[in-house]
């Protein structure tokens, strides 16, 4: 598997370079002088312009400019924002990135977990009223025009029922004397979630590897999971940050739910058809002949295999998820990469727009890589050979 992943990683690096090349030509094919676009902002003082021109290599021939551009992106040297001069593009994007990761990560995780379970159940009970109901709901959610749906969610839960704030990242009134910046709190939240996830993965892997008998294995897992949960809980109960974290968390509920609902529908539809295919396989029949109880056949045999195509499809869904993320950020005023991109585009802040695009491309590649790793873990035909 190491070999497989190394190859994938190399491929992705090449893909990223190709992506950057496309971006570069996108800017250069534009009518007018590129240097005017990049350095033409009247807010920038003349001496700074000259420095920028050199830093961006705009006084060089096209190919040299291209190499310059690639090097600059790879070293995060993305220039200076027109709109927020003199903040650097890298600074703006690095602030926005965790917020997008958070939205993207939670919505993806939730929708995959819940959608997979639903798809599994409805495929199993083919022909039931529950199946029809779920299918109709999923098709409606899947085909609804997402921006419109998001607006309706905001209107209904935010304005009509008044359950959730009308977008934004936090309630400014609560924060004016806060000892932390929003980003500090937010990054701590992200980190703790990541640590918990890594802990769970480690426990699953470790117990699977070192505890052979199933009964003590389950027991060990339960204890270790509880330990992780308790330590998370303890940290957030004791930490003085929790007040502010709660405020942020409160603001995330509506956008995350909205985004999740739509992916959830897609995953449900996908899992159902994948599951129906799997249920026709010979090994399902073998399991029945072996006298394996029906529930175990569903979960251990059918669903486990149905996961493979669903995981592959994640690669196809990445573009879809990113698109949904941008719309969500815009409608719920969630200051992540998507909103940064849209704002930059609206005020013609080209460096920020191109930088955001590069970051989003990187995010897509990263998601692709995660899907690949997951797939390799799930499918022994790849795991064992590589």
């Amino acid at each position, binding site marked *: 598997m190491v070999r497989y992943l190394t190859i994938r990683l190399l491929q992705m690096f090449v893909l990223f370079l190709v992506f950057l090349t496309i971006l570069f030509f996108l800017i250069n094919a534009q009518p007018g002088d590129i240097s005017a676009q990049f350095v033409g902002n009247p807010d920038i003082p003349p001496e700074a312009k000259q420095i920028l021109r050199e830093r961006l290599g705009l006084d060089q021939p096209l190919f040299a400019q291209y190499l310059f551009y690639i090097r600059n992106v790879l070293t995060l040297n993305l220039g200076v924002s027109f709109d927020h001069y003199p903040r650097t593009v890298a600074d703006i994007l690095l602030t926005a990135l965790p917020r997008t990761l958070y939205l993207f990560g939670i919505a993806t995780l939730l929708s995959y977990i819940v959608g997979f379970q639903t798809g599994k159940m409805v495929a199993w009970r083919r022909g039931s009223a529950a199946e029809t109901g779920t299918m109709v709901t999923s098709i409606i959610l899947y085909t609804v025009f997402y921006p419109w749906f998001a607006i309706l969610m905001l209107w209904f839960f935010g304005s009509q029922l008044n359950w959730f704030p009308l977008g934004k990242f936090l309630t400014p009134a609560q924060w004016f004397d806060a000892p932390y910046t929003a980003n500090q709190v937010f990054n701590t939240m992200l980190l703790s979630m990541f640590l918990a996830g890594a802990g769970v993965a480690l426990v699953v892997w470790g117990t699977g590897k070192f505890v052979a*008998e199933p009964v003590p294995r389950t027991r060990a897992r339960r204890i270790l999971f509880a330990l992780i949960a308790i330590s998370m809980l303890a940290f957030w109960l004791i930490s003085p940050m929790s007040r502010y974290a709660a405020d942020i968390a409160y603001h995330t509920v509506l956008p995350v739910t909205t985004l999740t609902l739509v992916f959830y529908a897609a995953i449900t539809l996908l899992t159902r058809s994948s599951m129906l295919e799997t249920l026709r396989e010979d090994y399902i029949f*073998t399991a029945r*002949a*072996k*006298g394996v*109880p029906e529930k175990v056949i569903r979960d251990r045999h059918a669903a486990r295999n149905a996961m493979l195509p669903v995981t592959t499809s994640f690669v196809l869904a990445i573009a879809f998820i990113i698109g949904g993320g941008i719309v969500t950020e815009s409608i719920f005023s969630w200051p992540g990469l998507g909103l940064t991109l849209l704002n930059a585009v609206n005020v013609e802040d080209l460096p920020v727009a191109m930088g955001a695009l590069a970051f989003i491309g990187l995010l897509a590649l990263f998601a692709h890589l995660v899907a690949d790793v997951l797939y390799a873990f*799930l499918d022994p035909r790849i795991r*064992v050979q590589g």
Partner: protein
Amino acid sequence: MTADRSMVAGKQEGEKPELDPGPILEVDHLIMNYRTKDGYVSAVQDVSFTIGRGESLGLVGESGCGKTSIAMSLMRLLPDNAEIQAGKIVLDGDNLLELSDEEMRRRRWNDIAMIFQGAMNSWNPVYRVGDQIREAIDLHWEEKPTVAVANARIAELFELVGLDPAMMDRYPHEFSGGMKQRAVIAMALSCDPKIIIADEPTTALDVIVQEQVLEELRSIQHEFGMSIIYISHDIAVIAEITDHLGVMYAGKLVEHGLTEDVFARPRHPYAWLLLSSTPSVTGPRLNLNPLEGEPPDLLHPPTGCRFHPRCPFATDQCAAEEPPMEEIEPGHLVACWNYEQVPEMKAESA
């Protein structure tokens, strides 16, 4: 539960268990149809036979005559559109058709195991082969064994079927076709079933491997005294390894008897044609009597004797009345009005 686990212990010491007399399986007037949107497919029509303990029965017949359908009925693993209209399947004293789903589930593999037609795909690709066998053991052994004990048993079974025990930690895709088939046999043996149904267990294998696997299957069966139903459309393969032979045509069992009797003197015209068109197991090729006409359409089976449109001995009675299964000599049953007309094989040969 019904299986006696001491047998496992007994086997581990290599003893040969005692055989009870009497039939282990009795199939009595079984009728099974598939419901389709064009009507009913009559796949098993009034089939009866018995198998004694430690005996083997071969079922032969052309493709689509209902052999797999019988096997699936015995396992009660029929698709949703199948309906068992009538009959009894008595395994070791209990009518399987009267058991609840849960009771039947416990019986599967424990009492009645199966080696499938096309066992190539019968392994779940994401689990180790050993783990898949252990799943059956965990489910059916009276006392759920520890992983170590179960693995020891699997290793033993692997050796029995000629596989390296280390292979049990491998995934199915790392096995060749023949190895998968052997592992399937190991899995079928894992819970000491009273009877094993082998549905074309070797069709996907090349001839040499096929012979080896068959040979192993037979010696294992003899050693452990389990019963086996062996399904194939290749009569030559079956002849060598079974005690009894059943010949099926269009959902019906048309001839049933000791393999050597049926081989020496097939009395049903279809069996006679089948045997005389098959290269002899031992001697030179016999005179070929080609089977003419279309295979029957089970949606609209022929009236009377289902073989009459293709039968060289057919009379008017054959088209009108269904011939009953008659015992023409001890243990040799035939369903034909004119079985006396069927010539001896010898007369046809040479």
